[in-house]
């Protein structure tokens, strides 16, 4: 297992790793689109934000998440504020789940995550379609929703290792 000495620079970078990955993912959109697999896409920032907001990780600043949303809007070409709104709503729902849960359980979190991303994608689709007259394929949203949900569990397992390394 990786061990760090406190106040080491590498340790500091390591503690900010979730935010760094979030920024890389919104700037780079690493969702394997270049593989050109029909209909395969997932929203990695949703997984990351939900997990770390649920864990109440102290280095995961909501303001930075908000700014990441603005960057995502700029890169993708969506109206400014749409992704920020989505990310903050994910944080809110995760925070609510954290407050009402005494004994966390992965499966419960997983299905709650499905509910959250479905709701947010529906809001996104409605806002873009009704207020900004965007032509969007709803099938892409549904499949994106499904894959994001499916990938939550493997991503959680990886993030757990990250936490273990920090706590050790």
């Amino acid at each position, binding site marked *: 297992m990786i061990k760090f000495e406190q106040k080491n620079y590498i340790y500091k970078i390591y503690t900010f790793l979730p935010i760094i990955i979030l920024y890389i993912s919104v700037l*780079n959109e690493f969702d394997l689109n270049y593989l050109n697999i029909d209909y395969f896409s997932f929203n990695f920032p949703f997984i990351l934000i939900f997990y770390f907001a649920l864990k109440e990780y102290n280095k995961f600043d909501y303001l930075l998440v908000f700014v990441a949303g*603005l960057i995502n809007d700029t890169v993708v070409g969506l109206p400014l504020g749409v992704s920020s709104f989505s990310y903050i709503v994910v944080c809110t729902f995760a925070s*609510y789940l954290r407050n009402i849960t005494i004994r966390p359980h992965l499966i419960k979190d997983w299905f709650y995550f499905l509910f959250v991303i479905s709701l947010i994608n529906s809001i996104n689709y409605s806002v873009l379609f009704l207020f900004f007259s965007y032509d969007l394929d709803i099938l892409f949203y549904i499949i994106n929703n499904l894959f994001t949900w499916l990938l939550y569990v493997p991503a959680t397992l990886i993030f757990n290792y990250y936490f273990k390394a920090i706590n050790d």
Partner: protein
Amino acid sequence: MASSRDDFVIAIRSAFLKKTTKQKFSLLTLIFVSVFIIFLSNLNLKIIKDLRSVINEIVFRSSFIVSIPENFLINSYSKIIEYSSFYNDYELNKIELEDLKSKEISNKIIISENKELKGLIEDYSFSSNKILAKVIVDHESPFLKTIIINKGSFDNLKIGTNIYDKNYLVGRVIDVNFKSSRVLLLSDLNSTVPISITPGNVQAIVIGNGKNAGEIKYIKDNLIEDIRDQSMAYTSGTGSIYKSGIPVGKINNANNQFLINFYSDFDQLKYVFVEIDQEQETAAQTINNESIDIVDSANTEKIKLEILNEELKILNETNDKFIEENQFLRSQINDKSNKVLELQKKIDSQNKKISQSIIDQKELEFLRLNLIYSHKCQTRKLFSTGYKVGTQEYKDCVLRKGKKLND
């Protein structure tokens, strides 16, 4: 019941308003701010546009830098794939290049003629100036098919500027910043292109299908039969969104649904051409312009002459090739005719041998029969019913196995 409602309210309030020591803003504040930004971005205010333009510039550059490692991996992979089929591609390209060279010349002639005719019809003409632009961000998002290029308002780009990959249409600019722009690709669901389909000159509109192709829509039912598989589609210029005559793609008829396979592969775009229009006045207006026009027409003539010279050169080269080929074919014909003569001789000698052997066989048969039936056919002193030996009648009698005509 009341306590569970209280718990719910407490949990909600805690989720929205509670700030930990590290959080600077509550979630409720951030939600309000994001809604406010969405509202502002819908207003299209100048200050918002400028602010957005600045953010775009910074984010696009950052995105380009962050994407370098990933792009490096993707490019390396595609290069390996390309190298594996390098030789085959080279052979095909060689053939295609020769074909295109000859077409290029006729195209140049047509373009110069076209310019001249436009000059006669209108008082002004547009000279297109294509500049090269680099694709700095291309995330191949399934939701919005757009790319970011490194040319903006500084390079005279406007909203609606046409973007090309070689000579093929790729899309148009929908958002311009100072040194970068967003291009809406033809494959996007929000893209519509008025096209003409040839042969048949059918007018239609292509709408991107969100993948890598386009669907043909808004076409009259009675014209559908005129569209053939692999027909060519080019921009019709209707609506003045796109210029006319730009190749778009080939028609593919799949289960009575007409799709367009675009000539350009939008996944492979690294550099694109941006067409910037420059209006040119012509002779009819001022004396100065007249002199410019004379120079222009002289230049056109010069270009024409150069093109014709080039064509002549190519024709001469082709002629030389034909002469060489002709000579080679002649020598081959001579060889072949010699062979034919030899074979003819052989056939004659063999024919002679065959006829000789047939005669010999007949003679042999006669001699065999003569031994058996000679006594029946010879003349006798007492009963002169036979024939004299050596005559044709005697021979026929022997061949008839001793039977006489009277028998």
